[in-house]
């Protein structure tokens, strides 16, 4: 049996220049850096079910513009340790441990999806740690809530709950399903339908590991898509007016399964005075992957010259 090729390339994609680990919260996190180590830092937070490698095209564009780009795999994601539990505030504490490993001073931060939402909350709760914020399609809104009657909602929740509890009864012994690079890419494309298979296959070679019986996504099998809980997406909007630093919201115009479908009009009433929102046309939730150059241009303009005053 011949072994299939185990590496992939992708136009413009570049692996980080440095890898290191941070484990001050008890969980060992994988930290990845692009660009000159002595350059001014910018931090980059990935979305749910992603990992820092999803920035392999976007991050080098910032690094080449003179920034030290620091990203990390969130707990249970990519090359970071699987944690006993996963929760929003825990992710924010993990993020702060990475910030601490870079500088005690305020730094510019960019976050996509869940990462954008996490960083928006961090900016509102610890204003002294972030100097400038970019949120890429990471503003939840009520649009993601299905419009159903209360009694249907009860049934939906009952099914969700039973499914989630059944999953937790099995999760100690669960593992991700193995497959070829092509199969894993194909599976991921169901949640990332606008992204090319070439890109998704490239991601497999970073976000998955090669076991004897095939490739498996590294993400903790106890993590599960979808869910329930008391949290309302629109609560995230309520944090936005508290933010006092330079703040750019980038939205993709096209709805997608992994996105919240938030439009400019949803965000506008909650935006603080100094903030700016840009809706990028003809791209979905993964704005920085579909349109890396245009997104980098927006972000670099927002950040100003590395190390300089805006």
């Amino acid at each position, binding site marked *: 049996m011949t072994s299939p090729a185990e590496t992939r390339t992708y136009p413009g994609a570049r692996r980080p220049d440095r890898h290191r680990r941070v484990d001050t919260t008890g969980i060992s996190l994988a930290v990845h850096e692009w660009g000159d180590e002595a350059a001014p830092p910018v931090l980059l937070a990935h979305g749910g079910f992603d990992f820092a490698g999803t920035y392999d095209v976007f991050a080098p564009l910032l690094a080449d513009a003179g920034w030290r780009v620091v990203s990390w795999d969130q707990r249970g994601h990519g090359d970071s340790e699987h944690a*006993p539990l996963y*929760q929003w505030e825990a992710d924010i*504490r993990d993020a*702060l441990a990475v910030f601490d490993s870079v500088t005690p001073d305020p730094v510019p931060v960019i976050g996509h999806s869940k990462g954008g939402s996490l960083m928006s909350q961090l900016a509102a*709760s610890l204003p002294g740690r972030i100097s400038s914020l970019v949120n890429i399609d990471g503003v939840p809104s009520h649009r993601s809530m299905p419009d159903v009657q209360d009694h249907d*909602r009860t049934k939906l929740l009952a099914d969700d709950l039973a499914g989630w509890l059944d999953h937790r*009864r099995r999760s*100690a012994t669960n593992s991700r399903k193995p497959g070829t690079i092509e199969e894993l890419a194909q599976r991921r494309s169901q949640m990332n339908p606008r992204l090319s298979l070439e890109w998704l296959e490239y991601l497999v070679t970073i976000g998955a590991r090669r076991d004897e019986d095939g490739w498996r996504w590294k993400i903790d099998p106890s993590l599960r898509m979808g869910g329930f809980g*008391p949290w309302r997406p629109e*609560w995230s909007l309520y944090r936005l007016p508290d933010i006092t630093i330079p703040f750019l919201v980038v939205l993709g115009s096209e709805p997608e399964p992994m996105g919240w479908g938030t439009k400019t009009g949803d965000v506008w009433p909650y935006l603080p005075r100094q903030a700016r929102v840009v809706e990028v046309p003809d791209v979905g939730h993964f704005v920085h992957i579909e349109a890396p150059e245009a997104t980098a241009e927006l972000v670099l303009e927002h950040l100003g010259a590395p190390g300089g005053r805006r």
Partner: protein
Amino acid sequence: MKRTDLLHNHLTLALWELRAGAGRPLLLLHGLGERTTPDALDAVESWPGPVHGLDLTGHGASDVPKGGGYYCEILMADADAALAALQPDGDGPGVTVVGRGLGGYVALLIAGARPGLVRGAVIADGPGLHGGGPGPTSPMLFRPEQDGSTPDPVALVELATDVRPPDYARTFAWQASALSGLDTAIAISAVNRPPWLAEVASQPGVVEAELPAALELFARP
């Protein structure tokens, strides 16, 4: 007390047998910062069947999850691990759950999520009954140190701030009532009425009763 180790994902939980016996088991869930103790039996002496107590994640003899990340639905899944142990084949007389404070909220959650396995839930006063209130307040950041001891300080902070919207709690009360087949699915013996519990108290299938009366109600075959 006889201890059984349960596995919930990768954490080990301590399930204590407070009193052996035949018939429908009673499962006790302690409050925030508490643990299962032998004197917990005093309040439920009238129960005719076996009595068990579960140490929730980060409490008592159960594991501390490094890096924290607690929320009440995780504790609901702790209770589900106990249901799986007390009723391994899934059919039987059902399990009645009595919770104090935080454990009372968890009892409501598991009664709504496993209406076929839980035969009545009692919500009693105790630490952590309020939780973080009905909606989000000012965001805050805390980074408590963990040393592996219980109660885990991260559990105390995270579970004391866990938001409990009344309409969310109501959904669990509805499910318990609609899907359990019981005329009364939930009894409230607590005196305090945080917003989530006031909402639950006004729902069909929910009664207010002192603990001995509530136990008598759920002890019936």
